[in-house]
């Protein structure tokens, strides 16, 4: 899907779930990712959106940027609300109060709303087997409250609560592997996607909606404000994250791993790190540590792909 040429972009659907006029920062990768996801999902959905950047920038009273049915939920219960929506739709169709239009429930959350605060609600929804799609827009920290670290923040990144300095190296822990946690629930569809590969992402969102049962898509959305990178580099950073192996794109259908884009030979990690201010303090040794870890993780993923 990733290799379609430049002309194909003109054939993408015209509908825009997230209308222009939202207050996202210049170069926001998340706004781009939401737009692409909405193009793939169409209009026959009900979105429940956890607190986070996307909720803050798109729904400032008295206006809203959403062109689709949209519910704002608390930080922790996007998945719970979406499973409630799904159950309610099912019951209303069964009781004949609503024609069966095949409306799907979708939950959207940031990395905080997925891997920290919303994890138990998400785990419950995946385990109960609701027919919903959960999309995590991961910008690797709590960006809208002022760049606090989350469990999805990568090793070595400087944030306001893991600042780099004389006595601190920045974030001390490795990024939580959220897609692996979703896979461990044995659900029909898990995928990672990036708005820098729009056709691949649209395909994955469509697949996630079509499967019968829970689906989880993890989207890396570049945040120029929090990553301290130039706004015009957002799309390139997304591509570099894939090509350096930091965020490989793969999908897991019924337990079967498949690489969507083969990035080998991997680019050196420095290509990705040096464009971001949050990694500016990194010593050579730490960069080497990150490089080793990335290669190690990538090799593990490749083994999973060949095994299954």
């Amino acid at each position, binding site marked *: 899907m990733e*290799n*379609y*040429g*430049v*002309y*194909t972009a*003109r*054939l993408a*659907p*015209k509908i825009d779930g997230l209308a222009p006029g939202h207050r996202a920062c210049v170069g926001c990768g998340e706004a781009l990712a939401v737009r692409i996801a909405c193009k793939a999902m169409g*209009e*026959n959905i009900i979105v429940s959106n956890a607190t986070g950047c996307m909720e803050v920038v798109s729904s400032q009273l008295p206006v809203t940027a959403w062109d689709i049915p949209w519910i704002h939920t608390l930080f922790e219960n996007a998945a719970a609300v979406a499973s409630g929506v799904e159950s309610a739709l099912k019951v209303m169709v069964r009781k004949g109060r609503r024609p069966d*239009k095949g409306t799907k429930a979708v939950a959207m959350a940031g990395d905080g709303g997925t891997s920290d605060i919303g994890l138990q609600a998400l785990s419950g929804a995946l385990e109960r087997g609701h027919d919903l799609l959960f999309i995590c827009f991961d910008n690797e920290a709590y960006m809208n409250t002022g760049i606090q670290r989350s469990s999805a923040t990568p090793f070595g990144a400087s944030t306001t609560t893991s600042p780099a300095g004389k006595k601190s190296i920045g974030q001390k822990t490795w990024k939580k592997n959220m897609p692996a946690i979703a896979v461990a629930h044995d659900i029909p569809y898990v995928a990672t996607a990036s708005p820098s590969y729009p*056709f691949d992402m649209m395909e994955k969102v469509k697949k996630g909606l079509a499967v019968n049962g829970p689906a989880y898509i993890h989207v890396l959305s570049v945040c120029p404000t929090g990553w301290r990178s130039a706004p015009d580099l957002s799309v*390139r950073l997304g*591509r*570099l994250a894939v*090509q350096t192996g930091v965020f490989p794109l793969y999908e897991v259908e019924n337990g079967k791993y498949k690489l969507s884009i083969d990035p080998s030979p991997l*680019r050196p990690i420095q290509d990705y790190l040096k464009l971001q201010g949050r990694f500016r303090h990194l010593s050579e040794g730490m960069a080497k540590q990150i490089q080793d870890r990335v290669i190690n993780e990538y090799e593990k993923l490749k083994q999973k792909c060949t095994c299954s």
Partner: protein
Amino acid sequence: MVKITIDGREFEAKEKTKVLEAAKSHNIYIPTLCAHERVVPSCLSMVEEGLAVQTNSERVISERKVAIQKLLARAPESPAIKELAKESGVESTPFPLEDHQNCVLCTLCTCVCQEVVGVSAISKINRSTEPNAIPYTVNFDACIACGSCAYICPTDAITLTDEGNTRTIIWPYQKKNFRLAKCKVCGRCWIPERQIEYMAEKSNQPLEFFDTCLDCRR
């Protein structure tokens, strides 16, 4: 705004929109296969004042079933058509099965090639209904291997695969390998060579501009 009636209910629709768009915007389901909002060879009826449309009368449903049965006979292996048949409750087809390698002659690919890409590499030969006639011909000299036809094909009759430095596109009854150009900095294959020539000509950029891939470009 004009007033139209769909299934006995009155709706307002914007002037100069298509009936399909008006129905879709009011969440009324009409199954489609090759309808596309940007490239349009089908579903062209426009709304007009006082128009009355039925989407689920007995006659519509039986006609729809026959149409889907005909499609199913023509392209029995296509996933999109299988899906359409499942939705409409069509299980088998009374028409004789024909092998057209999934092509249903919707002409989306020729429209895209001509209107969006602007190279006219695919064209119709004729509209023969004979079973073994090749419906399309591909002019390999003009094709720039962009893959737009593969992307838009609703029945997966056209496929595109990249392996190493060759891109293979398979059309019904036709197949061609294209060479991919390498980026001079990172050495990845990133674009078909023919596409570089075409883009350089269109954008008046020197050919050297396309030596490096998007990620290595400064």
